């Protein structure tokens, strides 16, 4: 999958996730109701028509809700369409029920030796409202929730995270190349080479293979300045200058660190996304460990240029602001939740007062309901508030502090430097492209944005085309002038 062109499950809007969960909840309730109804019918507490009802409930609510709910939040176009159709049907049916029987329509459902009064009218209203909201949300956010046909969506969360985090720039697939330099080897052949390859030679300076990391002696360099790898057989070009690595005299330097300009082998260089600049030609930028850690400062003749390390610890520091943002979102969500929580008892109280047709006159039941509404819900709200204040906020605070501590431990352990050499071996073993590692001590190199690159390439193409058209126009005009002057001369 082209990582930069596809969607990942992490692109899923929050609302879509909520729709999935809501539908699944409807499905579970439908399933439980089906089982209950079936059981009641089997035990004779319900008429034979109960079988039909349970079948309708199972086929019309449980199965579609569980099925669609399971897929709709996976960024699947067909599931979104199915959800919209299902919601429309549900709104239509519940609306019809409300139209025919009204909001106060109740059912008496037998339960063992008791019976429950179920406000079907209210349930229908709830379904109608919920499904209408779901339908509108999906239609309004169509672009975000329904990927265009043919779009590839990475749904594996771990792989999606890898894609979101970015991969080390490399032209190689995470598999060993065959000697032809294009096809890949089978896992067995690959393992054989990885087992026998050596990273040192006994014949002086060596060149490290970019395919298998094996060391081949420089004595084997051919007249055309290429060298076949002793282990995997690919033909390697030879780096432009014969300079040993600054840290390993036994290896020919592969290239220079793009920051300090010193020569290093593949074991001493890491790779990052290139800077966003049209002047930069390559798709990668190489850094030695020192520059990766932001400790090199180029001395130039003017004071205007310094290594941009001002935001050195922004990553760790950013955790505080992140926690701050979490507090803020939590508090606003909490306040909203509380608002609704207080509204529910009042509305319920109002609806109890209205109950009539089809309901019973059990005054004690109504009193119990009032007590529950007036006492239980506020107590629940209070408990939630206390939990929020005492537990959730300190937990968030603690999470922030622990994150800072972990970040600091990572910085002092200094293990983030991943050489291109190590990254290659890891990718071959794991058959997965390695994740990009940005220095904690150096501001991250901005990711080369594909859109920017495409836009700049498009801009260049347009400019070239315009230049070419202008040149052709001028050429035509010149020829026309020549022709005109020729004919004039002829006529004259």
């Amino acid at each position, binding site marked *: 999958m082209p990582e930069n062109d596809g969607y990942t499950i992490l692109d899923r809007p929050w609302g879509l996730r909520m729709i999935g969960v809501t539908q699944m909840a409807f499905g579970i309730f439908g399933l439980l109701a089906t089982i209950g109804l079936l059981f009641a019918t089997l035990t004779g507490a319900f008429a034979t028509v109960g079988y039909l009802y349970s079948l309708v409930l199972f086929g019309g609510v449980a199965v579609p809700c569980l099925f669609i709910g399971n897929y709709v939040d996976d960024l699947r176009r067909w599931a979104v369409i199915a959800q919209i159709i299902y919601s429309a049907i549900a709104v239509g049916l519940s609306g019809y029920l409300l139209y025919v029987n009204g909001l106060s329509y109740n059912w008496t459902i037998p339960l063992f030796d008791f019976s429950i009064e179920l406000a079907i009218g209210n349930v229908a209203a709830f379904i109608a409202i919920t499904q209408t909201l779901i339908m509108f949300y999906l239609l309004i956010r169509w672009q975000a929730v329904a990927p265009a046909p043919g779009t590839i969506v990475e749904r594996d969360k771990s792989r999606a995270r890898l894609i979101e985090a970015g991969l080390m720039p490399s*032209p*190689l697939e995470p598999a060993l*190349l065959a000697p032809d*330099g*294009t096809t890949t080897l089978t896992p067995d052949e690959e393992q054989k080479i990885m087992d026998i390859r050596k990273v040192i030679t006994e014949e002086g300076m060596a060149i490290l*293979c*970019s*395919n298998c990391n094996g060391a081949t002696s420089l004595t084997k360099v051919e007249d*055309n*300045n*290429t060298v076949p790898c002793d282990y995997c057989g*690919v*033909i*390697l*070009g030879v*780096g*432009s*200058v*014969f300079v040993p690595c600054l840290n390993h005299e036994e290896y020919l330097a*592969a*290239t220079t660190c*793009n*920051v300090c*300009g010193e020569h290093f082998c*593949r074991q001493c260089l890491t*790779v990052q996304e290139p*800077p*966003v*600049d049209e*002047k*930069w*030609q*390559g*798709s*990668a930028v190489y850094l030695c460990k*020192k520059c990766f850690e932001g*400790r090199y*400062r*180029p*001395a*130039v*003749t*003017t004071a205007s*240029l*310094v290594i*941009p*390390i001002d935001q*050195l*610890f922004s990553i*760790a520091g950013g955790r505080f602001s992140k926690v701050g943002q979490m507090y803020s979102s939590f508090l606003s969500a909490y306040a909203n939740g509380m608002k609704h929580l207080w509204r529910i008892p009042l509305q319920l109280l109002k609806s109890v007062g209205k109950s009539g047709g089809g309901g019973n006159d059990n005054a004690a039941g109504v009193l119990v309901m009032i007590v529950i509404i007036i006492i239980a819900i506020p107590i629940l709200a209070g408990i939630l508030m206390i939990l929020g204040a005492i537990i959730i906020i300190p937990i968030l*605070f603690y999470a922030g*502090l622990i994150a800072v*501590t972990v970040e*600091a*431990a990572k*910085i*002092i352990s200094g293990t983030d430097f991943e050489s*291109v050499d190590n990254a290659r071996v890891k990718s071959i073993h794991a058959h997965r492209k390695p994740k990009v590692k940005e220095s904690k001590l150096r501001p991250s*190199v*901005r990711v080369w944005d594909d859109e920017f690159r495409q836009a700049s390439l498009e801009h260049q193409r347009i400019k070239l085309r315009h230049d070419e058209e202008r040149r052709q126009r001028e050429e035509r005009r010149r020829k026309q002038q020549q022709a005109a002057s020729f004919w004039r001369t002829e006529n004259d």
Partner: protein
Amino acid sequence: MTETVQERILCPVCGGPIKIDQQDKVNRCEYCASPVLGPSQSRNCVTHPDILAKEVCHVCGDLVCEDCIQKRVGEYGGKLLTIVNCDKPTCIAESDWAKPLNEEYQKLANMDWADRIDNLILRITGLGAIIMMVFELIFFIGVMFYQFLTPWSIPDISIGALGPLIMIPVAILLLNILGNLMSAILLQSALQVYVHERQMGAGITLLVILIIEVAHLLFRGLFFGLLTFPNPIFLPLMLGAFLFGTILVFVGSLMAIYIGNKKRVQLKETQEKLHLSIKP
């Protein structure tokens, strides 16, 4: 060389394909643009054919020795990267947008000598600060646990109409959150000792915060009446950890101040020697 063979050549750096366009000049990897020798290219300097080349001109692709190169620092999308050009007038003109590297300054201001000691300082102060941070986190939980889930309690506190029922949790929360925040600031400062320019300042900041942190802990200990603490292991263990962290941060901050000052003097002398009025 046939086209089929040429396509098989891999870049020795990234493994990308190398298309051989030039026989006697460097060719660049199609992926990472690293230079690779042409099939019939000499490895020596183009101007001094008896000297092995050390660099590649980024403009013309010629191999050049140390006598023929100019190093420059160019800005690419906000990042400063080093580029090399040869001494041909056209190549110099093409590279004019980048600033020439002041090699004499570079040599005099080189701080490679401090790499090992800086690593050590970072780890000492970092480890100390992490220990103190963890200490604060555990101390907070510990006090909460003993206050609310055991018969032990800190002394009663009342302010006006606010009795112990409210004031005890408030005091525990506020004082410990303050301790946590101070240890977080300590941690942030501890990591900055690795930056040449900030080393001395970070060392001084560490010392000041350390003194405040120790005083704050002593105050909390007395205020909470920890001398009457029931658990014989918790308090000595916590104090031992705090002491260890304090010693590490203290030693690390002194080292940072000493090394940071040496660097400051080195830069000052370099500027005086080169008659530079502006700090590069």
